[in-house]
């Protein structure tokens, strides 16, 4: 599994009146971290979608476990990788480290989707293109 790493800085507006990151913001970072991970194919995600006629990867399930809260100014390292490839679904795992300690971890289950051939306006799942699976499965950290 290829792991993509990125560093985030917790901004003032990410935090709530208790002084810690308002947790839905972690889900925003999950989403953008998945985008960064897919850029490791060498193509930006919108470009990748266009190339393969996809409308995107809607989420069907997400889960997060929180261990250490983070505050304004904290630096977080996010490690993301595709843990599992299903027929048309995939599970992306995200780990957030603060000073080397696991602050939270979670997963996103998504479906590689294309326009439905018979029902305009609807979408359907389709197998993730093999070249993408191959590139993101590379046994490199």
């Amino acid at each position, binding site marked *: 599994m290829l792991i993509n790493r990125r560093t985030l800085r917790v901004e003032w507006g990410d935090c*709530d*009146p*208790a002084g*810690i990151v*308002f*947790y*839905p*913001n972690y*889900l*925003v970072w999950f*989403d953008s971290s998945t985008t960064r991970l897919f850029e490791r194919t060498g193509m930006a995600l919108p470009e990748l979608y266009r190339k393969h006629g996809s*409308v*995107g990867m*809607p*989420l*069907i*399930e*997400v*889960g*997060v*476990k*929180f*261990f250490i*809260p983070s505050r304004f100014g904290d630096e977080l390292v996010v490690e993301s990788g595709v843990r599992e490839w299903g027929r048309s679904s995939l599970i992306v795992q995200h780990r957030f480290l603060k000073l080397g300690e696991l602050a939270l971890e979670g997963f996103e289950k998504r479906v590689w989707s294309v326009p439905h051939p018979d029902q305009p306006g609807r979408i359907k799942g389709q197998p993730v293109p093999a070249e993408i699976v191959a590139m993101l499965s590379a046994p490199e950290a």
Partner: protein
Amino acid sequence: MLSNSRAVEIEWGACDPGGIVFNPRYFEFFDWSTALLFQRALGMSKLEMCRTFDSVGIPLVDTRARFLRSSRVGDIVQITSTVTAFRRSSFDVRHELTGDGLLAVEGFETRVWVGRDPQHPDRLKSKPIPAAVIDRFTAAASES
């Protein structure tokens, strides 16, 4: 157990370029739905609750959601929230978001009752959930 329901109108800014609600927004809805559930049980706002019980809040330790149907700008969705378990210092909440009567998103939260750590005032520390809080949930459920 006591439940609270509320209607939420999906705003433009809650949606993504796919025209559907961007998933983190559901967690914002659920967060405030939990606050409103406590408000209903205790008869006071979240801020008043924190002041009254010397709490800093009820942060999450675990959350999960399943997305079954999408919602779009202008949709009015209904969110029903229930505490499904109270433990010593943690508790579980379940949220059901429906659109046109159909289940669209199901959310689960485990939260902890926290105060300031007396040794390290800048840190949070879990505390037992006050019996008065749990009693109000039980009482409010039998009243409703």
